[in-house]
């Protein structure tokens, strides 16, 4: 992955299995959000391939890519809600474009999604009228609107209070268990990582490549790399 001549990461090789809760983590500036952008169709890799099942994502034509993008949902770091639309209109947008639901059915689904993220009753608020944490949760409701097969979260817990972060973790687990959604999360939040993840990739900003993949709990117990242990134990070190 590179911006012009400036290489951000190289030699990344990992697989996200269906039904995984996959974490992308690493020190700041290692290119986690950039990696996410490559996976969701916003940036073409300087070299390399991204596969969705057996489709080479960046080699197919635009229509095929758009069809794949309709099956994923993305929660951006700031929520990225459409600022000129109310929350309800934000969530109803993909529903209106890609489904044949009647307006009242759409409204029902909108209310249900908002309730799932803890924002019941805020349908007619504009994004500028609610707090940052609430905007993030509304963004999540919009990402889930079409019941996507894969959900991508960019730093979902940043800015959320601990109780909301825990509710978010519970929501992620239940999405995985009930709908079989695959979830890819870019995060630093150790509590969430150990609670929900079953696979991960650890990126290093100094060597600009990945250091490990696998279950974070196993990495904590077995890894030899000091950088990984520093990260996973918040600088304390293992055996403390």
């Amino acid at each position, binding site marked *: 992955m590179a911006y012009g001549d400036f290489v951000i990461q190289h030699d990344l090789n990992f697989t996200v299995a269906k039904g995984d809760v996959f974490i992308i983590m690493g020190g700041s500036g290692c290119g986690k959000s950039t990696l996410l952008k490559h996976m969701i169709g916003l940036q073409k890799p300087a070299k390399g391939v991204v596969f969705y099942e057996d489709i080479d994502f960046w080699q197919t034509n635009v229509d095929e890519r758009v069809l794949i993008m309709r099956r994923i949902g993305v929660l951006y770091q700031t929520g990225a*809600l*459409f600022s000129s639309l109310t929350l309800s209109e934000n969530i109803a*947008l*993909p529903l209106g474009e890609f489904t044949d639901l009647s307006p009242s059915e759409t409204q029902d689904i909108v209310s249900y999604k908002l309730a799932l993220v803890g924002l019941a009753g805020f349908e007619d608020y504009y994004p500028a009228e609610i707090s940052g944490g609430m905007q993030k949760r509304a963004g999540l409701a919009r990402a889930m609107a079409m019941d996507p097969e894969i959900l991508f979260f960019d730093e979902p817990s940043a800015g959320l209070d601990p109780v909301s972060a825990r509710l978010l973790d519970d929501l992620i687990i239940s999405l995985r268990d009930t709908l079989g959604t695959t979830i890819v999360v870019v995060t630093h939040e150790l509590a969430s990582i150990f609670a929900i993840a079953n696979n991960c990739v650890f990126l290093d900003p*100094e060597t600009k490549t990945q250091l490990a993949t696998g279950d974070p709990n196993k990495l904590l117990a077995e890894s030899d790399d000091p950088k990984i242990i520093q990260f996973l134990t918040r600088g304390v070190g293992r055996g403390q």
Partner: protein
Amino acid sequence: MNPPAPARPTTGEVTLSSEASVATLQFSGAWANGSAIAKPAGQVLAELATEPKPARVVLTSQDLADWDSRLPTYLLKITDYCQQAGMEVDVAGLPTGVQGLLRLARAVPERAGARRLEKPTPLLADIGKAVLDGLKDAKGLVAFVGETVLAALNLLRGKARFRAVDLVLCIQEAGPGALAIVSLISLLVGLILAFVGAVQLSMFGAQIYIADLVGLGTVREMGALMTAVIMSGRTGAAYAAQLGSMNVNSEIDALKTMGISPMEFLVLPRMLALVLMMPLLGLYADLMGILGGALVTVSAFDVSLVQYYNETHRAVHLSDFAIGLGKSVVFAVLIATAGCMRGMQCGRSASAVGEAATAAVVNSIVYIVVADSLITLICNRMGI
């Protein structure tokens, strides 16, 4: 009697003493803002560098009053120098707060390759860069035009995705919202045209031909041109700012990953609104221009209203209106292209939105005037 309280120190002092191969730097006095530092760091470093170089440097403090960031900043220069020169540094004599800050400031080493160096570039390199940027710009324009055409084709096939509500809102913004300013400007432009012509024509007693001048000038050129310049400043800049802000907020990325084409969803309603409204505004501007000319001619140059009307009717033909309206449509497409393109290409900061809006207006005006000249030239050649 109590002895007077000691005066508050107002300067920071550094004293250097050396014995054997150990140099001691003693810090005292006040190091908070407002106080003067007796010896600048450079001077201390120069003294440390004189032979014989000490193997160890001890930093201590004595009677140190308030200190703020100036003290650690000063100390860091000394410790960095000592580290580079291979001298051992002992900071145990400094206050614990200062020691902690020094430790923290050097805890994370500078990342290799992160620091950016300002190199003065030769003029030739600057010119080359400007040319390359211009080419990149042109490439971006061609790509944008191509995507717009594809979106328009989708529209004709009935498959374009945008909200009808957005189109109606854009039409309202671009059309009725502009009536006030278009009225004012076109009225005044008609007035000006009439005055300019009248001075010359009245020398020949040919005041009646002011009607021709104003009528043809407004309908063929000024109506469409002035409306276009007004709309580029008003609506072109607005489109660039709206789309630019959406880009800063990642809303356009959100649309893309949702599988909705931003070209169809955002650009098409805006372009359609302008294409529908500008000919109508142009027509209205023509009317106001002719009225403005009438105002001047009838009141100041001894021509009756009926005469003015008849002469205008004689001089201006339907083909002139057609040219004016055709120009309006072309200008509408150019303004929408410049505005939306600059908005979508906008950088990710607040100043970038301002630059995008400025670039949109400047680009549209350039495109409009160039297009106007071309069309006028073609019409002239074709004898229309």
